[in-house]
């Protein structure tokens, strides 16, 4: 409608009736982007690419996988040994999940640092958190499918979390299982949902991008664009920057896939599931470890589950817990320090989540858990009020063109 001339005859003909080409051009080519984005802004498109890799390799794996307790483990070995390039496709899918979480976590930490969750981007932030929750569910169910020891006992432990719900807990868990233990019924429904959820993620990603493009990208200065001199078109400036960053990430990814494909996994999952024997040391995949640490930090069953869920839900109210009017931590001397304390705290939680629940690990985990919640519930609201931010630059273009203002430190 708006763009009358977008390409050749056929493209114009279709676009007049279905504006798909002008929409794509508007989204991927013309989109006015702040001219000062740094490399931390690569991680959104990287996440999109890893979602795509997961969907493509996942569809291929589903062509060879058997969702039954008798056939699942053997079909994974069939993929690894017999299917042409099956080993490669499975290793890409396994490690692609880890890399998807790595880039998404960096993407979230970038948003935390530069205040990308603040008005008017609250809904954009929520949609991102919904994507994270869907990813977690998808990754968990995917880990169950090979039906190894870790699959089985991971599924048992996580589904049993729901038994903490008062009164209806047992009924809910039996409903999830479709029986009285983790068995064939659960494996089949997990396979069906593991196939479905990525497409739900695609849907929410589209909403995420629509919300993003409504008010435009945030930027390292955290100030609004004041005019056309503050932005440049997405293509070619950021397509090429994203591709350049992608080449680095794919190089690391290829190194892991080819030289350390099982590094991020757990060897116990190459033992077929045995309902009579729990592995000695059971831990979730690395990307769940901080949450697992919070779960174990609370000595009460229901309390632990509530704490773990709250650790994510608290991020939904972050736009209101942060009382500062300044977005970017660059101009917030106190908050900037707290931000790095939070990063360290989450690294500590990751370490504790992967350690046995005994001795000092318990105490450290409890302190780190308390600090995690204190950061959001106590420190952020207070600091936003008492802190005196540094003066903000007048505009993006001014700060880019004359360098006197210390932009990104």
């Amino acid at each position: 409608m708006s763009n009358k001339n977008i390409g050749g005859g056929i493209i114009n003909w279709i676009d007049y009736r279905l504006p798909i080409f002008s929409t794509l051009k508007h989204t991927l080519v013309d989109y006015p982007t702040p001219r000062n984005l740094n490399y931390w802004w690569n991680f959104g498109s990287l996440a999109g690419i890893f979602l795509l890799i997961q969907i493509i390799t996942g569809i291929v794996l589903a062509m060879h996988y058997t969702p039954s307790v008798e056939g699942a483990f053997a079909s994974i070995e069939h993929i690894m040994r017999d299917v042409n390039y099956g080993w490669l496709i499975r290793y890409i899918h396994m490690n692609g999940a880890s890399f998807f979480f790595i880039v998404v976590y960096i993407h979230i930490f970038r948003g935390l640092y530069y205040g990308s969750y603040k008005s008017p981007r609250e809904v954009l932030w929520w949609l991102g958190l919904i994507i994270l929750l869907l990813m977690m569910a998808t990754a968990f169910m995917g880990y169950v499918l090979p039906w190894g020891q870790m699959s089985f006992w991971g599924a048992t432990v996580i589904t049993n979390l729901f038994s903490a719900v008062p009164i209806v807990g047992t009924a809910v868990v039996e409903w999830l299982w479709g029986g009285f233990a983790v068995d064939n019924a659960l494996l089949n429904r997990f396979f069906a949902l593991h196939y479905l959820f990525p497409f739900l993620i695609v849907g929410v990603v589209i909403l995420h991008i629509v919300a993003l493009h409504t008010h435009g990208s945030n930027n390292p200065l955290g100030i609004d664009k004041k005019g056309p001199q503050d932005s440049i078109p997405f293509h070619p400036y950021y397509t090429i920057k994203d591709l350049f960053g992608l080449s680095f990430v794919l190089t690391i990814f290829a190194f892991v896939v080819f030289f350390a494909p099982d590094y991020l996994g757990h060897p116990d999952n190459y033992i077929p599931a045995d309902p009579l024997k729990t592995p000695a040391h059971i831990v979730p995949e690395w990307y769940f470890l901080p949450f697992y640490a919070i779960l174990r930090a609370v000595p009460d069953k229901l309390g632990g589950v509530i704490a773990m869920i709250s650790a994510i839900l608290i991020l939904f109210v972050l736009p209101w817990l942060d009382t500062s009017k300044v977005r970017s931590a660059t101009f917030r001397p106190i908050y900037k320090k707290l931000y790095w304390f939070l990063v360290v705290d989450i690294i500590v939680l990751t370490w504790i989540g992967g350690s046995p629940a005994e001795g000092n690990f318990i105490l450290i985990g409890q302190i780190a858990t308390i600090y995690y919640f204190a950061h959001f519930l106590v420190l952020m609201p207070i600091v936003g009020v008492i802190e005196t931010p540094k003066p903000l630059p007048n505009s993006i273009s001014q700060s880019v063109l004359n360098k006197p203002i210390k932009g990104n430190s």
Partner: protein
Amino acid sequence: MEKNKGKDSKSRRDFIHITSGLTVATAAGAAAWPLIDQMNPSADVLALATIEVDLEPLQPGQSISVLWRGKPLFIRCRTEDEIAKARDVDINSLKDPEIDADRVKNAKYLVMVGVCTHLGCVPLGQQGEYGGWFCPCHGSHYDTSGRIRKGPAPTNLEVPPYVYLDDTTIKIG
């Protein structure tokens, strides 16, 4: 000078565009190939592609069907009469001309893929107007050499690759 410079930079830019385009195309092809090749027969399927059959127990007039690559194979120990019928044919009258001697390694034993060349049904043995095979799906008649004589099938029943390991044992595939 100025003009030359402009031309020069243009051709250099073309060179960069073409080489980077080719690099991207090559990389995309290399990345796509595993995704395409995974649909080809896997190693365990290929491992079942060769079978050995002992012909010793077969008496004239008896047939067996064996499974090879998921398809039935007809192995028939033909009677003297059937062999004579198969050889006493005007080759030029056939839809898919082939002499019987070219379809067997030993005239006694006929080995064929038991899949109708029309649309893949399994023909019934010793039926039809020519005493060979008859496909019930769309009415193709094959003779005692498995050649198409009447009906919609375009070619004779396929003879698989096989060798005699000794007088009465064959290896198919």
